[in-house]
């Protein structure tokens, strides 16, 4: 499936704004991303496996509140840097 990468994370993806990753859940896709782009996961997911406060992950147009959300092969994922001021 296609994962849309925000500008803040494109230093990990060789500046690509869209990358492909596979997985049956958000957790699996994020882990797949980290295998392809080491270090990316920890910048958006905490050591307690929660999505960081100023990061949002959308599956199609629905916000995923945690990593357990199930995915279909044709889903599109958007990783978004939420407004955080300053």
């Amino acid at each position, binding site marked *: 499936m296609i994962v849309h990468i925000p500008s*803040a994370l494109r230093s990990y993806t060789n500046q690509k704004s869209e990358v492909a990753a596979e997985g049956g859940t958000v957790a699996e896709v994020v882990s797949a991303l980290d295998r392809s782009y080491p*270090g990316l996961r920890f*910048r958006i997911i*905490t050591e*307690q496996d929660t999505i960081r406060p100023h990061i949002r992950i959308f599956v199609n147009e629905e916000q995923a509140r945690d990593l357990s959300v199930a995915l279909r092969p044709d889903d599109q994922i958007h990783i978004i840097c939420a407004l955080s001021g300053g």
Partner: protein
Amino acid sequence: MTRSATNDPLRATTGPVALLIGTRKGAFVLRGDRTRRTWKMSAPMFLGHIVHHVVLDPRDRRTILMAASTGHLGPTIFRSTDLGKTWKEAKTPPAFSKAPEGQNGRVVNHVFWLTPGHPSEPGLWYAGTSPQGLFRSSDGGVTWEPFSYINEDPQYREWMGTVQDGTPDGPKLHSILIDPRDPAHLYFAMSGGGVHESVDGGRTWTTIVQGLEVVEGFDAATITCHDPHCVQLCPSNPDRLYQQNHCGIYRMDRSEGRWIRIGRNMPKKVGDIGFPMVLHPRDADTAWVFPMDGSTVWPRVSPGGKPAAYVTRNGGKTWTRQDKGFPRANAWWTVKRQAMTADAHEQVGLYLGTTSGEVWASRTGGTSWTCLARHLPEIYSVEAAEF
């Protein structure tokens, strides 16, 4: 925090000095020549990152570690092994242990403090975080692990409090110090939780807060009430510590076993509140502080808008104001705990970065000051790297 370029850490240095500057919006290097009269500012590195600390490894004088995060992304550490020409990210940055199912685990918000290990332990580094945690790397900062038992210890967790306790942007573990005579003799401090010492390489820790005062109305016997801002160990006498605390300036001679409030000897109208504490590289009686306004709602600016360093040359018995060159009035900035440092030249150079983004230096141990740079973002840290 001086990193001597000689094999003998007590010998005066003569080489060029570079200032490694961490700011709220990136890192900068201000390179000076051997005379420390000519300085050149680098382009910003990691522009937009919140950089709390940038430190040169004095053991190889090539490796630099940078503690960074952004407004959105999680905390990390960047490493350079070629003096900042190229950078790589740590493979596993400092992170707390995963909590058991059903329990709330802690999350590192930012890495606040970096300390290179003992000269006999190349590649070893320590890191302090917010929320308060202690971490160690054995491979030059590539991978990090929780260090010692304190991050998960119930007693320490009680002292550490929560992210809502202590310092406004989160309580910080800082001032990780290593006895130059013994790599197993360690200290660290917590902005909510006092000063702690280990003589067995972190297997056990002892709290050393005797003599320290706490905010009025609180109990000094409650460790979490103790708020050290910056603790330093004298390079020329490792049995002497100095401390700038939330409640005064202190000195401890280990043979006495308690902190003495040497800030009582500061002028009353200035007080003895501040963040940084800087020690002379070769004279254990000489130390500098940079007072700030700690009255009422804690403005955290120079008292009266008139910035000045203060120096003692007799272990805190008397203090001398050093404000020549600084603005005479209406300068409402201060200096954070990692943002003032010294080099190890014969005539000691002092360097500080302000909350208003200025870098100031004195080639004469503080007797006069010159502004080296303006218009940087808020400065969090300044380290003098000597080559």
